[in-house]
């Protein structure tokens, strides 16, 4: 049987632990801030490599961005990925999550048969969590979001999908797309010096819009239905009050408050 083919979609992001917000404009001050591989994507790359170690697979990493985004692909190669592709073209500039999903979907199609696509749950700069699901939609394949575990047996994928108050175990037949959620204490693993040097020797492919057969009207600003109107930090939620006591005491307290705040008509 042919080895499984896994594609991991990654993004280069500013290290938000170092980023400051301009209080006047509400935008990030990016000058001098180091760029990193989005930590959720880093986790997705590590998961793909674990699956490769277990089942044998060809792991490709894919990103869209300016030429400097090569750095995150080099990191993924050093961690053990087999192939790396950069979608870089002026025509992609200004793409929103929809146009980005479309472009990444086109690139994955170009790669041919793909069994599993992994993405981080979201990027730490935009925090939309939309690109992964968008790719699945573009490729018309099932998706499981917010997974912290994935297992594969007999071309059947079983994932642990986070929900607000617990988790669900979800199964799907390959091909499938999962967005990955690292555990709380996750720390990205970094490659050793020899692996970094080896990765420098690996070929990094750059694809243009034309090469992935992207329609000009579907990418860049033209292909982006979202227009950012304003960016601002949401107002801080006020801290709640916690009461303790017996059920009867608490019911009394709540009643008092409801009356005082005029929620109850007498």
């Amino acid at each position: 049987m042919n080895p499984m083919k896994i594609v991991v979609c990654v993004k280069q992001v500013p290290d938000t632990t170092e980023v400051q917000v301009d209080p006047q404009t509400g935008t990030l001050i990016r000058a001098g801030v180091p760029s990193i591989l989005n930590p959720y994507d880093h986790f997705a790359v590590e998961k793909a490599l674990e699956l490769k170690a277990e089942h044998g697979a060809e792991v490709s990493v894919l990103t869209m961005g300016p030429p400097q985004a090569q750095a995150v692909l080099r990191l993924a190669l050093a961690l053990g990925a087999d192939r790396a592709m950069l979608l870089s073209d002026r025509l992609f500039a200004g793409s929103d999550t929809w146009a980005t999903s479309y472009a990444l979907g086109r690139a994955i199609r170009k790669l041919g048969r793909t069994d599993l696509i992994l993405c981080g749950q979201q990027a730490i700069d935009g925090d939309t969590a939309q690109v992964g699901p968008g790719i699945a939609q573009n490729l018309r394949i099932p998706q499981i979001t917010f997974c912290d575990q994935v297992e594969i047996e007999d071309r059947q994928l079983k994932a642990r999908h986070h929900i607000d108050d617990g988790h669900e175990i979800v199964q799907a037949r390959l091909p499938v797309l999962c967005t990955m959620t690292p555990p709380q204490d996750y720390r990205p693993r970094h490659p050793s010096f020899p692996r970094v040097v080896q990765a420098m020797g690996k070929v990094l492919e750059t694809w243009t819009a034309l090469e992935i057969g992207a329609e000009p009207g579907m990418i860049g600003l033209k292909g982006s239905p979202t227009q950012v109107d304003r960016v601002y930090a949401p107002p801080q939620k006020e801290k709640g009050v916690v009461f303790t006591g017996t059920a009867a005491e608490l019911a009394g307290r709540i009643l008092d408050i409801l009356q005082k705040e005029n929620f109850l008509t007498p």
Partner: protein
Amino acid sequence: MLDSLRDYAKRRLPYEELRRLDRENEFPADVLKELYDPEILGIHLLLIPQEYGGLGGSTFDIYRVCEALAHIDLGVATSVFATFLGSDPIRVGGTEEQRRFWLGKIAKERLLAAYGATEPDAGSDLVALSTRAAHVVKNGKIAGYRITGNKQWISNGGVADLAVILALAPGGPSWFVVEKGTEGFSANAHEDKHGIRLSNTCALALDDVFVPAENLIGGVEGQGLSQAQAVFGYTRLMVAAFGLGAGWEALETAIRYSRQRIQSGGPLSQKQGYMLKLIVPHAARLEAARAFIEDTAHRLDAGKHGLQTEGSIAKLAATEAGNRAAEDAIQALGGYGYTKDFPVEKIKRDVKITCIYEGTSEMMEMTVCRGRWQEHLKSRGTYYEEQAAALDRLHASCPTVGADSAALALRALNKILEECRLQRLTRHQHVTMRLGEYIAQAETCAAFCRAASADHYSETVRFDAQTWQALCRIHARETAADICLKGAKLVLGAGAMNPGFADALGLGAILAKQAGALEDQELAMKKLAESFRSR
């Protein structure tokens, strides 16, 4: 790579752990093992050429790793560095077979090495060497050597798997490889040091230790001192990077603290008196040293050999700047700085060693003066004049880096050197050493101007052009005034006042260039505070 190193340090060497190792004077053997593990980091491979199983890092790569290591801990940095130093005589002076065997072994078996040159009575002055290597003759041929003597202050001495030992053979000073466990070869107790306490430092005793003839590095006796000299340009650059990294670590801590600490209604980072005294001048000196280190690293990587004078200038400038920065970082943190709860106290103790090992600052001053004095004589006094003219041209094309002040500094230096020649003042050791200091400061200043006027900065520069150029102007002004005033004092103190000397120093022009100094310092103060936010 640096991310991998920093990530490892964050996980494995948080400050509390470093503090414990420092307190207990404990060498973290497991950390060194992990640093050398090719699956975890494999840091030692950077120092070994590719053909012997290493990664063959460039001088620039190694400088960057050294700086990053010093940001983490100078004791760990020293342990890594000692292996590099210990393998150096083999790399530089070994036969092809020796290099293949020993360097291959260090790479593959992740060996720790030690460099055994210093003796109780022979430090900077290696000619006073007293360790002896006597021939062991079998069947009329030299089968090996018996080595007897003592070595002092040997980094990794008690933990190294192999040491290179400098000993006086019948044919002259020579390096020998001595493996751990060889009969008669022993290490004394780990020294109780002021700083870098987790780095293992021991005296070594060699009592009639037999090594086979093939352990004589290079296979020919008498090459030892030239083999030792050949790498100083390179190794001193690494210690310079240590001073730079440790100095910046201390300064960054102080800057982050200054943003949080409120005094009289505002953070210290907005107090001019505090920042302009304790922070800004150090940032300028450290960045000037960085520019010089990088310039030298690029030249070595381009195939330039030797560069002992440049290595010494880099070491003198960076380690003294790092030491002074750490000293003021304690002051900047006030009472907190004086406690062990904050890292600056430890950095200050650690960084002091960089002014001592691999040649003390005073030896650097002498080496720098010796090297450049020759250039001054050979060029009949045009050596620095030509460099000043180049800075004038730089100023014409890029007037924002203070190259005009730097040119004045070099011209003043040139006059001082010439006056010392005319009055034969270099017969005074004090004069030669002070000249060494001025030369290092002037050349560092010129390198900073060149780097700050470049279209693109090295990726190591963490500031925008406006900030870096302001720091460069601050450094250039300070250098011009220092050299002119201190140099004049030096010459007049040692010799006579020749007519025209004082005027030739250009004091008036140098003082005129001080205009705008406060404005630049205030700009640098604001930018530095913005660059390092509180953690």
